[in-house]
């Protein structure tokens, strides 16, 4: 497809489980972003990559959160030992160039029981 895709769309995890969320950006897009959106809130920045380099990870809430983009294309956001407060929609976005429009995927809705 032409847009940003994310998988899975829905994920239910038991507290303490590890989860991995995948993002496929638009082909050729240099920058890739991860945001967390809690219910009724705007998206909050987590981290972003330019190609394979992680340029800003200031938004990652704890060391349980880890993101990678090893070949400068697909990215994975990993959350270890999930907690209930991690329940949110995780949005991925990509952009073609610096300060260009960010195109968002549909998000992964994570529920931690």
């Amino acid at each position, binding site marked *: 497809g032409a847009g940003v895709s994310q998988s899975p769309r829905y994920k239910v995890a038991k507290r303490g489980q590890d989860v991995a969320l995948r993002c496929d950006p638009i082909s050729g897009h240099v920058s890739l972003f991860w945001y967390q959106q809690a219910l009724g*809130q705007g*998206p909050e920045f987590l981290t972003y990559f330019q190609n394979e380099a992680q340029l*800003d990870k200031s938004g990652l809430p704890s060391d349980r959160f880890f993101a990678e983009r090893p070949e400068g294309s697909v990215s994975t956001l990993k959350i270890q030992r999930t907690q209930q407060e991690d329940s949110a929609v995780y949005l991925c976005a990509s952009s073609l160039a610096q300060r260009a*429009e*960010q195109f*968002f*995927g549909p*998000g992964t809705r994570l529920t931690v029981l």
Partner: protein
Amino acid sequence: QKEVEQDPGPLSVPEGAIVSLNCTYSNSAFQYFMWYRQYSRKGPELLMYTYSSGNKEDGRFTAQVDKSSKYISLFIRDSQPSDSATYLCALLTQGGSEKLVFGKGMKLTVNP
């Protein structure tokens, strides 16, 4: 105080009304101003993207930026039921990180 403040509403208007959505911000380093629309269970989609102060019009949508007041607005003319969604302002600095800083989002319902 958050960097970007947006009244979360909700806002309900009749079809054909003019809608005004607003955000205020505190960081003068913001130079790029965006409005995103988000339908339920979808990702945000860009509506308007402006740089620095001024107005920008696109069909029924007009974005205004007043940097002296640190105030941005989105106007929707002749609102339609299909405009019912959450509207998010998003701001970006001139240099440094490319992270978007979002407002809380305003949920708009346009009633037929």
